[in-house]
């Protein structure tokens, strides 16, 4: 992180979108995450996507749980209301917020500990209900804020920074989202902005439960050989491993690759993340096929990214429970209270 305040004045030539905002109007406070953290790349992608989508920033409500990822909503959309809720329970708070006012855009930001460990239940149920939202999981396979414990998405056999092997079967959030009935499911990599920004844009425009599982390397605690969600930091920065609190400034990780290829993304620290683009003929409208495809490739050690599934006829919770079109929080007393005459009839029926 930096301690230098961002200049508040914007350059007059900055491009404005159709609602009159520059890209910088979508920024938030300066990140307090580690330099080079994948999560900051995701924040940048969210900023880019919202700007490109011409969304008025204050029309977005951003909610998160607890953890490094859940701190990030403070670092984008600074004029939006945000809510740092409790660990693993952001989905229920987001559901309630959405029920209160269906006219806003809801963005849930969570991590793998928040969504796959403590919050697995709420993650599953918010998708079942079809809450209209964009749910981004910033997935690094590790607990950062408590310094390096495995999360439930860590691969079996992968090693912690202290050398312990993870014995538990990993939870694949994209596969789970497919089972639980999410109607827009994407997976991406924090370093691949070209892929991520369009995925976020699609999710925000989707009228139902949209999930994006974003693999987002933790350079502080999951950045060693033997980890499947990290870059081989040890080889290049041996000292850093022994000095846990020191993190050298790094550049963001970016990748570019074409359609239908398996790509080994070689990072500046020499580690490799294997990514596979979807086949050109891949049908993201087939939920069952998508499940098989994701699992087949996972068995080969490959991470399938892109838009995995979308239901073009998605319907959301409000439609399912048949609420009125206007925001519930704007209903007047006259619309809510049946009045004393009706109450007298109710009294009469109870005699």
């Amino acid at each position, binding site marked *: 992180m930096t301690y230098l305040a961002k200049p508040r004045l914007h350059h007059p030539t900055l491009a404005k979108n159709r609602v009159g905002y520059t890209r910088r109007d979508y920024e938030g*406070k300066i990140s307090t995450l580690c330099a080079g953290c994948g999560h900051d790349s995701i924040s940048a992608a969210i900023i880019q996507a919202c700007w490109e989508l011409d969304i*008025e*920033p*204050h*029309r977005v*409500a951003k*909610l998160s749980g607890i953890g490094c990822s859940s701190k990030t*909503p*403070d670092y984008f959309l*600074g*004029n*939006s*209301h*945000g*809510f*740092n*809720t*409790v660990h693993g*329970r952001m*989905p*229920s*708070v*987001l*559901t*309630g*917020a*959405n*029920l*209160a*006012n269906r*006219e*806003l855009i809801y963005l849930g930001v969570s991590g793998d500990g928040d969504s796959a460990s403590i919050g697995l*239940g*709420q993650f599953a*149920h918010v998708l079942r*209900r079809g809450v209209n939202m964009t749910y981004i999981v910033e997935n690094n396979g590790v607990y950062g804020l408590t310094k390096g414990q495995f999360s439930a998405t860590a691969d079996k056999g992968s090693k912690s920074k202290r050398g312990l092997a993870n014995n538990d079967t990993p939870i694949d959030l994209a596969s789970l989202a497919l089972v639980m009935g999410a109607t827009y499911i994407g997976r991406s990599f924090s370093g691949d902005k070209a892929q991520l920004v369009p995925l976020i844009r699609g999710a925000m425009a989707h009228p139902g439960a949209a999930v994006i599982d974003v693999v987002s390397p933790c350079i502080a605690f999951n950045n060693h050989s033997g980890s499947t969600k990290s870059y081989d930091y040890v080889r290049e920065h041996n000292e850093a491993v022994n000095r846990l609190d020191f993190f050298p400034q790094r550049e963001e990780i970016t990748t570019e690759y074409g359609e239908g290829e398996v790509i080994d993304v070689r990072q500046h620290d020499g580690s490799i993340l294997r990514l596979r683009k979807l086949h050109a003929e891949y049908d993201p409208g087939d939920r069952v096929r998508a499940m098989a495809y994701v699992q087949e490739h996972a068995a080969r050690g490959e991470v399938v990214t892109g838009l995995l599934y979308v239901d073009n006829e998605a319907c959301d*919770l*409000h439609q399912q*429970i*048949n*609420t*009125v*079109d206007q925001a*519930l*929080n704007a*209903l007047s*007393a006259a*619309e*809510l*209270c*049946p*009045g*004393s005459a*009706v*109450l*007298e009839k*109710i*009294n009469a029926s*109870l*005699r």
Partner: protein
Amino acid sequence: MQKIEAVNDFVIKFANINGSGSASANELVARAILRMGVPVSPRNIFPSNIQGLPTWFEVRVTERGYLGRRGGVDMMVAMNAQTWDQDVREIETGGYLFYDSSRPLPRSRSRDDIHVIGMPLTELCNNTYSDPRQRQLFKNILYVGALAHLLDIDASEIEKLFGQQFKGKEKLLDSNIQALNVGRDYARENLKPIGLKVERRDKVGDHIFVDGNTAAALGCVYGGAMVCAWYPITPSSSVAEAFIRYTQKLRADPETGKQRCAVVQAEDELASIGMVIGAGWNGARAFTATSGPGISLMSEFIGLAFFAEIPAVLINVQRGGPSTGMPTRTQQSDILACAYASHGDTRHVLLFPEDPYECFEMSAQALDLAERLQTPVFVMSDLDIGMNQRLCRPFAWDDSAEYDRGKVMTRDALDAGADFGRYLDVDGDGIPYRTYPGTHPTRGGYFTRGTTKNAYAGYSEAGPDYVENMQRLLRKFETAKSLVPLPVLTAARYPARFAVIFYGSTSPAMHEALDALAEDGIYLNALRVRAFPFQNEIADFVASHSKVFVFEQNMDGQLTTLLINEAGVEPHSLVTVVHYDGTPITARFITHEIADRVAHLNVHPLKEDRVA
């Protein structure tokens, strides 16, 4: 042999098997008596079971309008072989045992000091009906018919009730009336008269007969609840179910038929309170209904709502505790769990309804208080009030009253340049202004956190910011004292040095006990506490008596603890009297406990001008 003789003042208990259709038959007896202008107070004592386990229904017929549980049974309708011995034991000397005599009863399993009334219900049913389900169901109606004859219950009232129940189902109506008549005819021809009678009176007035959960749900409808999120748990589930039932009619948009509220059955209590908090944060009035175990699960979120200052209403229909608790038994055992719910330094507003009328009133009021104070508010009902139909004042609503939506800063105010600090105490009452998400493009947005913040909602781990915020929350809690319902004083006829404090469902039994004690020359001032935080009136009340008995339906004397902690009362002046076996407290218990203690305390001569 002695024979209990009573007109409009007795207790009948029905011992049945769960799932046998007895509940509606027994309720019929209660309602028919009510229609004769005589108050009744029924109580369901039921197991955590759907079919097969014992269940009881107790009807207190009470011309004087005492709606608490009296204690003791004058007539037992023993329809369950499993509980026979226990049921027979419970009958008062000179009382009556009504049973199905289709199979002979060994003398050893009866008593000599009670009147035994046998009626071959199974035999009569088998002779009249061939369908097994009908044989079962109509057995209940048969005994209703017999009781109508024995107790002089006007059969035309029962027929009218059938008429309402089976409107449009004439076949069912006819067969029920037939069963009723078979029972009446048999009783008239074969059974000896008994000493318990119902006589027509006009003592019910305009009172309504309703359970507290239905009342609380209706209070939420009238109080403007927009979102209800809940998870099924006995004894609170019927709050949400009644809310759904009422809103389907009362909140349907007349043009589109769409709902002006949202109800979600969550996956657990963590999610239900999370949804309520999300909705409250976003400017909707929201509530959940739960019971003790649900409160335990919600505790982390309750703390967040307290610190993040988010309105939320929790209707806690208390049941036996601790742990998963006695799900079908009543207690007042969540007082401390709710008053201090969550980690960190938290205090929450509690309301204590005494009956369905107050369940309605306080649920609606809780929605106002939650938004005014921007904090969770608990309506502390219990199973006794929540799941039993109780006679109470008719619900009332003032159409000119407006909802108190609290301090919400609007777009216009922000445009006018108002200084918006989410946690800034601008009025000195500890209550800050809030904005709803989406209010203004460039002003009024903020990031909501628990405690790590300054008055302008900026991230701050600075100690002074934390302390300042906590001190403001204390001021806010002080403000709450002026907003929550005041305690209700029932003054003794003569100056009294002893007093009682009670709350919630203890109320009807307490008022009856106070009358009984006064008849014996024991006079006590009584204060019914209706809310936490405690107003100064409560401390003053305690200070003006030498001993104050605090009656509670929990083991630990939780309200007593809270009074000592929070009301500044002298601990030595409080004497806690507890009743916590899961059955509702009775007037007999209270009378006995007070009379005993007062006798003990009065060993020393009293001052001339004072009576105990």
